[in-house]
């Protein structure tokens, strides 16, 4: 029986090759893009789930109140907190501190730069990262122990057995021995933690200095609670502890006028579930990905599938008109309602199946380029997981049932007598069809509007003046073994007399996002005249104002001619305002009572961070504790390419082992908005696919409608209708639908884009004409699609169509 259904279905599909092709092609396009999007989202949401203890593991963070009434979040913890908590709270089963560092490693004649992670021993018990060889029960035998992942072990030791091998690592200015005690399995791709060399937390060179220091926050803390306690319960248990431990801090906060949180607290220690880490951008910076972005991807995927399904439903129902004779005949010959339905459903199923198979293959091969395009982490291997397959099969059955089943059922219900008289239509009126088509247009207009708005915002971000020279300044991350200050001095010596170079300075924090993909911020708070002042702190060097092209509001630039500049600072206007002195030059900031810092100049506010953030108080210092990590060179004129070449060759002679990662600041600035750029790309690709699919459906629909209305068109022409009025007759309905769609899409797009724009301190205003443009563009594309069919129909000789009786 089933075989028979499919045999006939196949024959029918083959007979209507063009229709089948439109259907299969549309579905393939939709399935492939939706699969890629959904697989990526699934992958991002799968982060850290493989940890069997994940539901009980939390990442701690502070919430502190400001005088402005806002809460600040920070995941930087002081050194003693972890051990103290574990000692005092039996709810904590395990706890580990985590900090990262980098240094050089030497083994035999190999010397490589490595990243080190310092953890407590509990790390290996909390997380599901299996140790594969060596001392798997107690990998941290002593402070000189080292755990290495399999891949890095291979890179260092080759085919040798790494267990028990001793290597040298650089600690500050000397070398120390470390012994490999265990190997750890390579971290899964969907793990937030990706570490190569793991060492005991206590083995950090400065550990003894900070062991009991509560005021220096720099590490990440993870705790595993007993399953009987929830994160929220534990947070409330922590309140008395925090009150006591941070009594001094709270007192100062009160003095500075901090507004307490709703529950009256000034500082709270909160628990962020491990499973939230990857999708929460508020607390953990780094490589996490916003939920908003993921939901957006998911929504676009579902919308694309919806459009394809609508095409399918509309075409099937539309065609039933031409196939109603067949249905009627089948029924008079004794077919039951559900047998007829099965027949049509089998056809739908076959079409969807072909599309799915093609899409799966396409998706598999497109994963790598797609991943790159959208800056996602998805791996081809996700298509080999059983769970994913179950989801795909389930989704597939659902779609075929909906898209194939509904029209099949409608057709099966046709009244036989009406059918044979040639008077039956499916679905009574065209209301369903029009509603579905309108819905497709809503999606198209929505995505076009979103594309336009993100594009406008991106354009605004790129072109808004930042208050410093971005075009002529090259930023060079200091790499290699050379000392940072030494590197800067050497560069100065070599380039000072070059006709291409205007001036040189150094910076602790990069401006924008460099090719080294790293960014950092240091914020310092200190008491000034019984008030706490907070400021971003950036170490720099001489000529910073000149090199960056900053505008001095008062005072002067740092200069080697003033020996006292080692205790001098420059502040921005926001900081000057915060200090609130009439005569700002010469004000002494009591950071360190032995050596106060003197303000020698005020620079006009400039956007030293991305335009997502407002300009906050900023202090530029020559402090040797903030050694330059970047050398900034302002070049003369516009021979930018040659200048870059010069930097590259000079850098090679300054730091022979160090890789050259220089880039112009404007590139760095743009790189900060990569995420936003991806979002824009995504919207535009989503919009294009939505439009292509909608138009494909529209085209098929119009051809169908025209074929059903040829006689009417003929009669109208005989009665004197002009070509224009016929085109109008056919397209008017669709244009009205687009108008309604634009009206529906506008508030939705406005709402979501407004929400997105809230993430930027500097944002465009959404303008009404964006929506008009999106509507018009959709109408234009649709009209072109309909138009040529309509014109063809209108130009046809009416004699033929009238005669067809």
């Amino acid at each position, binding site marked *: 029986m089933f075989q028979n259904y499919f045999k006939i279905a196949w024959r029918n599909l083959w007979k209507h090759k063009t229709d089948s092709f439109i259907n299969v092609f549309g579905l393939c396009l939709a399935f492939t893009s939706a699969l890629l999007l959904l697989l990526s989202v699934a992958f991002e949401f799968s982060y850290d789930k493989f940890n069997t203890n994940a539901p009980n593991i939390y990442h701690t963070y502070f919430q502190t109140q400001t005088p402005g009434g806002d809460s600040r979040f920070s995941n930087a913890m002081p050194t003693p907190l972890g051990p103290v908590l574990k000692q005092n709270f039996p709810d904590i089963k395990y706890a580990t501190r985590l900090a990262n560092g980098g240094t050089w490693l030497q083994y035999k004649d190999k010397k490589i730069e490595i990243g080190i992670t310092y953890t407590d021993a509990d790390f290996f018990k909390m997380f599901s990262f299996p140790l594969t060889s060596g001392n798997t029960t107690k990998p941290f035998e002593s402070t000189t122990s080292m755990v290495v992942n399999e891949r890095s072990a291979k890179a260092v030791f080759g085919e040798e057995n790494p267990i028990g091998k001793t290597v040298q690592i650089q600690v500050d200015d000397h070398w120390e021995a470390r012994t490999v005690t265990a190997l750890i399995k390579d971290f899964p791709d969907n793990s937030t933690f990706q570490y190569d060399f793991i060492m005991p937390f206590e083995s950090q060179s400065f550990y003894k200095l900070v062991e009991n220091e509560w005021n220096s926050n720099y590490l990440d803390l993870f705790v595993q609670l007993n399953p009987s306690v929830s994160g929220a319960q534990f947070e409330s248990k922590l309140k008395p502890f925090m009150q006591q431990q941070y009594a001094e801090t709270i007192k100062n906060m009160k003095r500075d006028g901090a507004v307490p949180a709703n529950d009256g607290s000034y500082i709270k220690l909160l628990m962020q579930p491990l499973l939230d880490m990857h999708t929460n951008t508020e607390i953990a910076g780094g490589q996490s990905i916003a939920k908003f972005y993921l939901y957006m991807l998911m929504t676009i995927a579902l919308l694309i599938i919806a459009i394809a399904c609508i095409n399918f439903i509309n075409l099937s129902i539309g065609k039933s008109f031409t196939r109603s004779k067949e249905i009627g005949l089948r029924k008079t010959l004794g077919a039951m309602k559900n047998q007829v339905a099965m027949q049509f459903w089998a056809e739908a199923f076959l079409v969807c199946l072909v599309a799915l198979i093609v899409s799966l293959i396409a998706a598999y091969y497109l994963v790598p380029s797609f991943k790159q395009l959208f800056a996602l982490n998805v791996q081809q291997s996700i298509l080999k997981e059983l769970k994913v397959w179950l989801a795909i099969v389930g989704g597939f059955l659902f779609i075929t049932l909906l898209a194939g089943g509904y029209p099949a059922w409608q057709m099966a219900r046709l009244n036989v007598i009406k059918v044979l008289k040639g*008077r039956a239509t499916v679905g009574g009126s065209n209301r369903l069809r029009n509603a579905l088509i309108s819905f497709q247009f809503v999606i198209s207009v929505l995505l076009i509007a979103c594309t336009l708005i993100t594009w406008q915002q991106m354009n605004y971000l790129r072109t808004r003046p930042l208050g410093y020279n971005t075009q002529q300044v090259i930023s060079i991350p200091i790499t290699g073994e050379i000392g940072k200050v030494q590197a800067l001095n050497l560069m100065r010596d070599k380039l000072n007399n070059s006709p291409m170079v205007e001036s040189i300075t150094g910076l602790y924090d990069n401006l924008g996002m460099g090719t080294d993909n790293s960014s950092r911020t240091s914020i310092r708070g200190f008491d000034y005249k019984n008030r706490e002042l907070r400021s971003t702190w950036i170490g720099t060097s001489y000529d910073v104002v000149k090199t960056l092209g900053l505008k001095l509001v008062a005072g002067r630039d740092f200069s080697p001619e003033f020996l006292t500049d080692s205790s001098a600072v420059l502040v921005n206007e926001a900081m000057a305002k915060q200090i609130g002195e009439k005569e700002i030059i010469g004000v002494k900031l009591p950071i360190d009572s032995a050596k106060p810092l003197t303000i020698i100049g005020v620079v006009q506010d400039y956007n030293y961070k991305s335009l997502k953030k407002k300009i906050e108080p900023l202090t530029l210092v020559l402090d040797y504790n903030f050694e330059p990590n970047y050398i900034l060179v302002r070049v003369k004129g516009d021979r930018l390419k040659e200048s870059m070449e010069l930097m590259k060759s000079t850098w090679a002679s300054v730091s022979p082992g160090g890789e050259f990662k220089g880039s112009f600041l404007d590139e760095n600035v743009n790189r900060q908005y990569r995420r936003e750029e991806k979002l824009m790309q995504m919207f535009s690709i989503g919009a294009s696919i939505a439009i292509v699919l909608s138009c494909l459906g529209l085209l098929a629909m119009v051809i169908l409608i025209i074929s059903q209305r040829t*006689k*009417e068109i*003929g*009669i*109208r*022409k*005989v*009665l*004197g*209708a*002009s070509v224009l*009025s016929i085109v109008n007759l056919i397209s008017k309905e669709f244009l009205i639908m687009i108008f309604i769609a634009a009206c529906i899409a506008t508030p939705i797009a406005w709402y979501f884009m407004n929400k997105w724009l809230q993430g930027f301190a500097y944002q465009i205003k959404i303008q009404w004409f964006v929506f008009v443009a999106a509507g018009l563009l959709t109408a234009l594309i649709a009209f072109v699609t309909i138009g040529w069919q309509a014109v063809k129909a209108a130009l046809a*000789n*009416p*004699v033929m169509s*009238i*005669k067809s*009786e």
Partner: protein
Amino acid sequence: MIKITDLEKFYRTEEVETIALNKLSMEVKEGEFVAVMGPSGCGKSTLLNILGMLDDADAGSFVFNGIEVSKFNERKRADIRKHNIGFVFQSFNLIDELTVYENVELPLIYTGVKASERKEKVEKVLDKMQIMHRRNHYPQQLSGGQQQRVAVARAVVNNPKLILADEPTGNLDSSNGNEVMELLTDLNEQGTTIIMVTHSEHDARFSHRIIRMLDGQTVTENILV
């Protein structure tokens, strides 16, 4: 009013060439009622379509109201057509989606008549055809005779000088057929020129003159009045 000379029309389909009209000449004066008869496939409908400017001839001349129209383009022909000619077909050719009223109104819309004037004209003609009470019905809700009355109403609503009717009674029984024929006679008496294709000698007798065709040519003419 109409003068055609040596009119030719060919149909080419897959190597077979059919001569539908073969050097056909004829003349129709204003106010005449002419019936065209002949066996199936002799070219009657083809002739009517050309006279109605729905189709163009391959050769020959066609003078309408003293103007040579055979070389006119589609736009110009359509323009003459909608102001001068009304059609009645065997299969009524009403638009199923429109009501009786709307069907009749259509030619007025296409000739750009004002809405108020349209209402008056449509109602007048519906009255005359005695289908006023059915004005809001759809074609499918009417009998064949009623449908053809609507079609005639639609053909005359613009006061055309010429009505072309292709087997107007072909799908009707004799009493409905007679009603339609009487309508046409009335119209003719009020001055409208009528050319009617028919297979029925009975219907043909309502006309003034019968043109008999064979293989795309006129063979005889019978003058009845």
